[in-house]
C-alpha cells in the first residue's frame, strides 16, 4: 500500500538555531519557570511570568515552559526589549527562552512620534492592566506610552488618574482602541 505523505500542517517546523546572544548566557544565569501545571489547573500564569521577568537582571534569561506556544507573550515582552527563542519539545510542551536582544517587534501602526507602544489585545483581565501599569513605572517624565487594546479599559482609567498620568482614548478603526498615556513633567 502506498504511504500517503504527511500533511504539511502536522509536521513540526524545524527549530531555528539557538541565537548567539542566548547561547552566551551561562546556565546559572537562566531562570526557569514552568507554568504547565498551573495552566492545566485553569490558573492564570501571566502575573507570575511578569513577576519573573521583572526580577531578571540584565545578563539573565527566562526559560519558560508552557503547554502551548505563548505567542501573546512574545509581543508583550518584545516591547520590554526581550527577544525569544522557541523550542517545541512535544505538542503540549514548549520551552521559550526570553533574553535581552535586538529583535523586539515593530511598534503598532499609527503610534505618535516619540511614543512607546504596548499591545494588550487578546489578554484576559486583569492582565492588560498589569502589563500597562508595569510599563508605566518605567516611563520618564514627558514620555508617552501608546496602548493598543480591543476594548476601552474602564477599570484602568482611575488607576491612571490616581498615579498622576494624563491620558486620552480614541478608536482609529472599529474594534481597535488606542490609549495614549503620558507621565507629565513635574
Amino acid at each position, binding site marked *: 500500500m502506498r504511504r500517503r505523505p504527511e500533511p504539511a500542517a502536522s509536521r513540526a517546523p524545524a527549530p531555528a538555531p539557538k541565537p548567539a546572544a542566548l547561547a552566551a548566557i551561562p546556565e546559572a544565569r537562566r531562570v526557569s519557570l514552568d507554568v504547565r501545571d498551573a495552566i492545566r489547573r485553569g*490558573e492564570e500564569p501571566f*502575573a507570575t511570568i511578569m513577576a519573573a521577568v521583572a526580577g531578571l537582571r540584565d545578563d539573565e534569561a527566562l526559560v519558560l515552559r508552557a503547554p502551548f506556544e505563548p505567542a501573546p507573550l512574545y509581543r508583550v515582552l518584545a516591547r520590554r526589549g526581550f527577544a525569544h527563542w522557541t523550542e517545541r519539545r512535544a505538542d503540549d510542551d514548549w520551552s521559550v527562552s526570553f533574553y535581552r536582544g535586538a529583535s523586539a517587534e515593530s511598534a503598532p501602526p499609527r503610534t505618535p512620534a516619540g511614543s512607546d507602544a504596548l499591545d494588550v489585545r487578546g489578554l484576559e483581565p486583569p492582565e492588560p492592566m498589569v502589563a500597562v501599569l508595569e510599563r508605566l513605572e518605567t516611563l520618564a517624565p514627558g514620555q508617552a506610552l501608546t496602548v493598543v487594546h480591543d476594548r476601552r479599559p474602564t*477599570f484602568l482609567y482611575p488607576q491612571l488618574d490616581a498615579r498622576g498620568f494624563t491620558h486620552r482614548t480614541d478608536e482609529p478603526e472599529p474594534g481597535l482602541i488606542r490609549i495614549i498615556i503620558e507621565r507629565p513633567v513635574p
Partner: protein
Amino acid sequence: MNARAARAPSPMLPLGFLAVAALAFALAGLALPWLGDALSGHYYHPRILALTHTLTLGWITIAILGASYQLIPIVLERPVWSERLGRWELVAITLGVVGIVGHVAIASWSGLVWSAALVAVGVTLHVVNTALTLRGLERWSFTAAMLVMGFAGLVLTTAFGAGLGVEHLRTFLPGDFFARLHAHMHLALLGWVLPVVLGVSAHVYPLFVLAPRPGRRVIAVQAWGLALGVPAVVIGLLLAAPVLTAAGALAVATAVAAHLVWVVSLLRGSRRPAFDWALRFLVAGAAYLAVTAAVGVALATGAAGGPRWALTYGVLGLGGWVSLTIVGMMLKIVPFLVWYRAYAPLAGRLPVPGLADLRWPVMEAVAFVCLTAGVAGLAAAVAAGHAAAIRAASVVVLVGCLAFAAGVVSILHHLVPCPMRRPAVRPS
C-alpha cells in the same frame, strides 16, 4: 475621534449586591432539605413560593443587578450615573425580598404587598439609574439592546408580581389565577433573565474563552426569537391560548438554539488551553438551558403536563440553567472586583497575585460536582414525586451551595488588609 473615558464604579457597589445574592443562594440551599415533602406535591405551596422568591429575587435578580453595575460601564462604555442611587437600591431590594419571602411563607398578604412595593422602589431606582446612564448612547450593540429588553421585562415582572399580591387582598384581575401565575413566572424567566443572559454572554464569553464574538445572523435570530416569542408566551398563557403559547415557545426555543450553537462554536474555537471552574459552570449552565428549553416546549405544546413536570421545569431552569450560569459569572466577576480593590493600586509597583491566586479551586470543584449532579438528581426526584429522593438530592445541592459560598468568602477575605503575598518564582 476623541472618545469619552467611561469609568468603572467603586468595586464595592457590585460586590455588595453579589455578596447578598450569594447569601440568598446559601439560604435557599439550607432550606431545600426541609422542603422534601412540599416539593413532592403541587408547586402552589407557601414554602415553595418562598423558596422560589428567595431564588428569583434574592439570588438571581440581586446578582444580575449587581453584575450590571460592573458590566454596564464595560459593555456600554459609559459611567454609571449614580453610585449612591445604587446603594439605596440594594437596601430597598434586600429589605423587600426579605419581606416577600417571609410573608409568602406565612401567607400574610398585606405584608407581602408592602414588601413588593419596596422591591418595586429598588427596581425603579435601578431602571432610572440605567436609563440615565444610557442617555445619549450613540452606538447600540446587541448587548445594550438585550439589557434594555431585560430591564423592561424586570419592570413588568415586578408590576405583575405586585398586582398578584394586591389580588390576594382585593380581587381585580380578570382570568384564571394559575394562568396569571404562569405568565408572571415566564415573564420573569424569559422577559427578564433570558435577554440579560444572552446579551451579556455575547459580550463576555468571548473574553473568557478567547474566541470571536457572535455573528450578525446568530444575533438576529436571538433578538427576533425573544422579541416575538416572549410576548406570545406571556399573552398566550394569560389568555389561555395554547396555540399562541406554543408558537411563542418555539420562537424562544429558536433563540435559545441559536445561542447554544454559538456557545458550542465558541468552545471549539477557544484559544484557552484549559477551562477553570467558572467556565465549566457556564458550560454546564448552557447544557441545562438546552434541557430546560426542551421541557418548556414540551409543556407548551402539550407533550408534557401536570404540576410535577411544571416543578421539574422550574428546578431545571432556576436551579440548573440560571443558577449555574450566575455561579460561573460570579466566579469570574468577584475575583476581578476583589483583585481590583485590593491589588490594582499596587500593580506595576510590586508583584501582585493573579486572579487564580484569589480562588479556592477545591471548593469550586466541590460546588461544581454537587450543584450540577445535585440539580439533575433533584429534577429527576421531583419528576418522580419521591420525597426521600428529593431530600437526598437536596442535601447534595446544599453541599454545593455552601461550597460555592465558602469559595466566595475565601475570595472576599482578600479585601481585609494584609501583607502582600508575592507570587512564587523559583530560579533554577
